[in-house]
């Protein structure tokens, strides 16, 4: 019964946090969109396409942030065998994969008008693509294992292995990119962020973080509910078997 104690407290905590994070998500994203689409100037170099950056850059940040959350939860799940950590790692994966997909799609949509091609093997886009494959591998593995406890442990190991490998993969891809430097590309995002870009970027990034919290809590809730549904179904099956015998 101790197993249920923490999730029960979590359910109460979640119902307190969720209304706040929902409101903050909506507020931040609406004001972020206002600044991203209306109240900011076009870039002197990129023109109106700079507005794609307000989605692309925060999404790319979130792709990495979600993987870090997944890895941290996986570490907690392996070390302390905390049932909430198990659920959190599993719930974070599809959200992170979603943000990664957005970063890829918007990167391509920005590349076509700016680079004149849908795909450039630039270090950043390539790293994000590999991150996307890491998410897909995690989700495929967790879904392939029927026993929920075994699935969580296998997923946790894979998430941690992926996490320690990300810096090496990133380094190798950056380095590969300098070997094959394409003729002339505008650095994407880059260090030179104009002040007018900062406000929409920050608002969108914060909005995405609260979106992550809201969806993560909802997904964790349903995972916990489903675990109890399974336990109850097993108990009922057991009872009817006993009654029959």
């Amino acid at each position, binding site marked *: 019964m101790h197993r249920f104690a923490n999730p029960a407290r979590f359910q109460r905590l979640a119902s307190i946090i969720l209304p706040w994070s929902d409101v903050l998500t909506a507020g931040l994203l609406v004001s972020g969109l206002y600044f991203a689409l209306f109240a900011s100037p076009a870039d002197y170099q990129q023109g109106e396409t700079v507005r794609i950056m307000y989605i692309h850059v925060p999404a790319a940040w979130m792709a990495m942030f979600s993987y870090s959350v997944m890895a941290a939860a996986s570490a907690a799940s*392996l070390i302390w065998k905390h049932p909430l950590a198990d659920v959190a790692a599993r719930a974070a994966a599809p959200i992170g994969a979603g943000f990664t997909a957005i970063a890829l799609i918007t990167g391509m949509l920005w590349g076509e008008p700016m680079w004149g091609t849908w795909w450039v093997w630039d270090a950043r886009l390539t790293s994000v693509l*590999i991150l996307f*494959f*890491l998410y*897909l*591998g995690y989700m*495929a*593995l967790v879904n*392939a*294992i029927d026993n929920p406890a*075994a699935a969580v*442990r*296998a997923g946790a*190991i*894979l998430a*941690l*292995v*992926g996490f*320690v*490998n990300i810096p*090496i*993969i990133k*380094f*190798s*891809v950056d*380095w*590969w990119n300098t*070997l094959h430097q394409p003729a002339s590309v505008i650095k994407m995002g880059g260090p030179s962020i104009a002040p007018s870009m900062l406000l929409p970027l920050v608002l969108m990034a914060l909005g995405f973080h609260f979106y992550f919290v809201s969806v993560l809590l909802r997904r964790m809730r349903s995972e916990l509910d489903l675990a109890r549904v399974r336990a109850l179904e097993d108990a009922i099956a057991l009872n009817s078997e006993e009654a029959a015998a």
Partner: protein
Amino acid sequence: MTRTLIALIKRDLNLAWRQGGGALLGTVFFAVAVVLFPLGVGPEPNTLARIAAGVLWVAALLAAVVSLDRLFEADHDDGSLDGLALLPLPFSLVVAAKCLAHWLASLLPVVIISPFLGLMMRLEGDALVALVLALLLGTPGLSFIGAIGAALAVGLRRAGALLSLLVLPLYIPALIFGVAAVEAARMGLDPAPHLMLLFGVTLFAVVIGTAAATAALKFDLE
């Protein structure tokens, strides 16, 4: 302890050779995959030499993945993994020994035939030497990183496709540094720095692969 480990490696090698030459299948796969490229791209010598390093390395990665499913599967199915866990030595050493045996049986043959295929892909002189050295230093890492995937997917149906999705993204650093070493030699540059980076990747793979595969298998045995 060393004697037990050597006995363990010998046992795995015997098993690999006995299963109808199962170990060599990956090597044949490597050769066939490489031969497909001149047929697909055309036999023009400069083109072949330009893509040779990449083609040979990618074929080696795929040959590694194809042979991974046998790493723990047989021992898991017949229950001898439980027996190995009871040996009076750390389980991680058992796992490392099995990875080493996998490299000896499945990937060392790939390294041995690679100069012939390199010649067919129009690599010459220093580039050919760099290719063999790079494969020799890089492929052990493929066995150890691959062991993570093999341990996580052990006992699953249709593990093959899942394995490639789990493992191939983690092979990217080895691919990049391995190809860079051959390319450097082909351009008349010193491949040594690339080979050292590649060997660093392999050492890292040995540590992380042994630890993660051991953890995954231990959970499976519980």
